[in-house]
Every structure is written in C-alpha cells, then in structure tokens.
C-alpha cells in the first residue's frame, strides 16, 4: 500500500466517522428565551383603541391571525384531572382551543386561547409561527353569535415553562384582552423548554349580522 493510499483511507475513515457522529445534532434549534422586544412591522397592524367597548358573552368559533396565516376553528378546552389546562388533540388538522374558564373574546378579562406549535408526526401546529407576531398585529376572534372581536397585539413573550407567568396570563384585567399561548424555545426530549405568549387588547368589534345569534 502506498503512502497516498494510506492517507486516502485514513481521510475517508475520518470523514465517515464525522458523518456518523454528526447525525444526531441537527434537530433542535435554539430559540430566544426571556422577553422578546416588539419590533415594528408594516402589514396587518392595528392600533389598540382606547376604551373599546366590551362585547356580550359568546364563545369563539374561529380565530384569524393574518400576519402569520392562521385561520382556524376554535374548540373548547377545560381542565385535565391534574389541574393543568387541556390542549387541543394531536391531529393532522390542528386547531386552536379556547379555555372555557376564561372570558370569551371581547368580554372584560383575559380570554385564553391555546394551540400547538408542533403536533408530532403531523408536523407544524396551528400556532407554529406565533412567536413571529409583533406589537400591533391584528387578531380576530369570530364568535358564535356572529360578532367578531378584533384585537391588537401588545406584547409577545417567550418564557421558560418552569416559570410560567400565571398571574400575567390569567390575572384579572380591567379591559377585554386576549392571550394566545403555545410552546417554543429549545426542544427538550418530547417537548419544549419555553412557552410563547401573545398578549393582545381589544381594538374593535363587528356586530352580529341580522338574523345571526
């Protein structure tokens, strides 16, 4: 065997080793944690109206977030036996879910809607791009009675799941607000390290069309 052959074999062997060992490290992508600063962006923006009037109670049936291409039916979610909030089922047609112990969108208080960031083998969840929202982005919750509550994003936060800010999310507020919640950040085994929480305030409303309830 010539010196060149030896070098060639050694190089090939090392390359194969590097290929083999590098296979595991390509999945999880790191993500910011902590509070993300809202950044200006032009489309799909609304300005929160000061003192937008609260709406009558009516459960949400659809959620639209044009800035990130979300247009999804909304199901109802309760509590699991362990006291945690239930999440939408893991299916190919992923949907958002409204936490039914929270106000309906447009009522005074924090209305809470949850959605998956990913749904296992089905790929991206309905809130896959939630962290891309910025202050002023528009969110529309369509209600069972035909009305629509329009919200403007006021903040987007990414927080460690171990320090979920329950008071900020579920605590009383003196105006109609909305919380959109999903997971985010680095993947940890079969889940995620963080939660992404979008805070929004009511900016307008569409009345029910005649004949609808």
């Amino acid at each position, binding site marked *: *065997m010539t010196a060149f052959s030896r070098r060639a*074999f050694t190089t*090939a*062997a*090392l390359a*194969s*080793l590097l*290929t*083999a*060992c590098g*296979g*595991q490290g390509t*999945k999880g992508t790191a993500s910011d944690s902590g509070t993300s600063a809202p950044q200006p962006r032009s489309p799909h923006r609304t300005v929160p109206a000061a003192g937008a009037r609260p709406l009558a109670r009516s*459960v949400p049936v659809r959620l639209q977030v044009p800035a990130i291409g979300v247009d999804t039916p909304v*199901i*109802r*979610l*309760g*509590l*699991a*036996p*362990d*006291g*945690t*909030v239930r*999440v*939408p*089922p*893991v299916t190919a047609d992923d949907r958002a*879910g409204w*936490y039914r*112990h*929270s106000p309906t969108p447009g*009522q*005074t*208080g*924090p209305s*809470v809607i*949850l959605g998956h*960031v*990913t*749904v*296992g*083998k089905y790929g991206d969840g309905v*809130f896959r791009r939630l962290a891309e929202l910025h202050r002023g982005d528009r969110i529309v919750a369509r209600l069972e009675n035909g009305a629509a509550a329009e919200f403007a994003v006021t903040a987007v936060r990414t927080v460690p799941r*171990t320090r*979920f800010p329950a008071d900020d999310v*579920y605590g*009383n*507020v003196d105006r109609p607000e909305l919380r959109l*919640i*999903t*997971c*985010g950040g680095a*993947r940890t*085994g*079969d*889940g*995620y390290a963080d*939660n992404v929480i979008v805070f929004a305030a009511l900016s307008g409303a569409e009345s029910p069309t005649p004949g609808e309830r």
Partner: protein
Amino acid sequence: MRRTVLTALALAGTAVLLGTGPAFAGGATTPSPVPSAAAPTPGPAESAVPSPAPAEPTRGQSGSRPAKSAEPTRAPAGDQVSVVPSGAPDTGVTEGSSDSGAGGTAVGAGAAAVLALGGGTFVVVRRRRATGA
C-alpha cells in the same frame, strides 16, 4: 504500517458501533405522537358543541385563589378566569421517539459506511499481499 492503518480503521468502526447503542435504544420503541406522561391527553369532552358542564377537579392555585367546586357557566364577578390551571400548557408535541429514530438511522448509516470502507480496505490489502504488490 498496513497493520496500523487496519487497526485504526477497526477501532474507529468499533467506536461508531458503540456510539450507536444509546440512539438505537431510544429508537427501539414504537414512535408515538403523543407523549404519554408529559402531555395531557386531549379530553373527549372538547367539542364545538356546547354541553352541560361536567364537574371538574376542585383545586386552588397555590393558595392564591379559592377552589371552585363546579364548572361555572360564566365568570364570576370576582375572578375573570374562574379556575386558574396549574403549571404551563403543554402545547408542543415533538416527534419524540421518532427523532431519536431518525438520529439512529443516520448513525447507523454512518456506521455501515465505515464498515464497508474497512471491509473494502481489508480486501484490497489482502489482494495486494497475495499478488506481492
């Protein structure tokens, strides 16, 4: 020198095979899209059709809120969110075991490549020895 090269290749192949152990162990189980313990299973009660409220577990939130004994039909005046869930919502189901399976596949392919290379080297060397080259 040839022996040195062959020995190095054999050791490298062995090291890669040993490294695949944990990955294959993770991938040996059948991938499941729903983590059985970490993620709460979706409830059958969730539907788009309103239904009579079933009783839900009575609990308080770290002592800061009073426990509710039944499902409210509307938020009471005191608390807009009538029952505060515990913990953080688990709204991200990764491919979990499927991921490790994919990683295991990659490692396995690498190991196979190393073995094939080592085997080819061995054959070439044997032939050259046999022909006296």
